[in-house]
């Protein structure tokens, strides 16, 4: 089927709409403040990489990035471990209460996080975990569990049982069967849900905003929004653009490297 010229034009226009703001941010991050105010279209006379250095060090983008890596890394590991364990047990071991546990986990996906926000703040506060890495990691994990269990539960059900049975006959313990046989077999499912969780956790804004009030512990999304909103940095436009670009870059690099897996991972979650 031939695609008409008009359709091509529309596709191109949307492609420009997607790329132009991003390209513009990159170009602006290399300009001086005066050049930014002069015209949004001009190219920098000389690329000012010192904007990036300033955003990294003075505006703490580097620190925010490190905080994000620690929190997201910890939460992702814990989510995958816990999610896989629970999903496996619920999918493969019939025991009294199995269905109740499964449905109460899956029901967690129906509730908007806004509903839990106020009590959650006080729960985390009473545990003395406000503004700590481990507090955020545990909360992120708890809220990522329902989808992870839901996704992996159906995945573990489709895996053949024969290999696990053979391993039991050979004297493998339950834990060994899980870690050495079932987990490697579930790899494709783990990768999909891992990508889904990674992006979800990396992009968290509401939970850190409420539970992470210490500016030294800000995660990237939170820190960047703080810089953009707070008046003190208002004058440093080029620095802000640089911070924005630094925040976008890791995601862009990941997308270029793994674009197929990322798109499949994210859409697999939606059609379930």
């Amino acid at each position, binding site marked *: 089927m031939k695609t008409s010229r008009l359709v091509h034009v529309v596709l191109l226009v949307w492609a420009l709409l997607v790329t132009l703001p991003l390209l513009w941010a990159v170009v602006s991050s290399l300009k001086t403040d005066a050049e930014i105010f002069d015209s949004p279209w001009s190219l920098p006379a000389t690329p000012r990489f010192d904007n990036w250095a300033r955003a990294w060090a003075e505006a703490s983008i580097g620190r925010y990035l490190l905080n994000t890596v620690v929190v997201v890394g910890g939460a992702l590991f814990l989510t995958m471990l816990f999610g896989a364990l629970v999903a496996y047990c619920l999918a493969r071991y019939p025991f009294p209460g199995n269905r109740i546990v499964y449905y109460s986990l899956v029901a967690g996906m129906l509730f908007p996080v806004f509903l839990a*926000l106020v009590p959650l703040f006080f729960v985390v506060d009473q545990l003395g975990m406000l503004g700590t890495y481990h507090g955020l990691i545990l909360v992120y994990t708890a809220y990522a569990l329902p989808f992870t269990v839901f996704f992996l539960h159906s995945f573990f059900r489709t895996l053949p049982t024969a290999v696990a049975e053979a391993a039991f006959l050979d004297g493998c*313990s339950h834990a060994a069967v899980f870690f050495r046989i079932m987990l490697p077999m579930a790899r494709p499912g783990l990768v999909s849900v891992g990508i889904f969780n990674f992006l979800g956790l990396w992009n968290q804004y509401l939970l850190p905003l409420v539970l992470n009030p210490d500016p030294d512990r800000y995660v990237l999304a939170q820190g960047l929004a703080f810089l953009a909103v707070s008046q003190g940095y208002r004058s440093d436009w080029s620095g802000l653009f640089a911070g924005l670009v630094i925040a976008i870059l890791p995601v862009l690099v990941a997308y270029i490297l793994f674009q197929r897996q990322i798109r499949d991972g994210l859409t697999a979650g939606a059609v379930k």
Partner: protein
Amino acid sequence: MRHGRYRFLAGAMLPPLLLYAVFVVSPYAQAFYLAFTDFNGVSSDVRIVGLDNFTRLWSDPLFLSALRHNGLMLVVVPLVTIALALFFAASTRGGRLLRAYRVLYFFPQLLSVAIIAVLWQFVYTPNSGLLNGFLDGIGLSTLERSWLAEPRFALWCVMAAMIWSAVGFYVVLFAAAIESIPADITEAALIDGAGPVTLFWRITLPLVWDSVQVAFVYLGIIALDGFALVQIMTVGPGGPDNSTEVMGLSLYRNAFTYGKYGYASAMGVALFFLTLTLTVLMLRATRRERVELA
């Protein structure tokens, strides 16, 4: 063997379930209780006030305008996003170049909503922003505005950013659905003389309706939120003249600025029931005969 089995189950499931109970189940349960109290952060003098918080919601002009704004977003955002995404998905079948568009369109989906908000705030900036710079460049400088500062435009600007970031995901989702339509159905329609428009309405759309349904629900949930975009992009709390106030922002401000935790929880409960109703309604309204693909 039996002994080992229960020890394994307990060891594997108790820590995650404990975590879930403490940080997810208990806050949700408490929220329903707090919504009926005047809790203000001091747990020693909590009074049960019955439905007071909910009756106050109905006479709170700010919450009602938030409700209206979310309602408008609920109509505009899913419809525009799905229309664009269906069009792009259907027109990027075929060559490698056309498929490359999908890869490109998808990218904004990966960005944090905070990053999208900051980026678009820059785009809309009056003096040095991309939008006014563009209008200036093509000789339409009379249309230049300080977009986010004018009550008439601010909410639409927020919605544009929301749609911009969402379209790509649904392009990929719909494209996958369209590609699973057997080629012989499409070919038969073409032989019968169906043009691209007929083909889309009579063949493609009915066969990808399941995905469209899912999209309506997801986009509806996004449209009932909008918190981060509004909080970061528009001036002050709730934008110029509160023209971009959304329910999430009302809740957040009542809780963490004014300390009216009970009242904020009532908003949370209202939001929950709205989300639930919406999901059920969307699924019902969009229900069609299921088409079996042989």
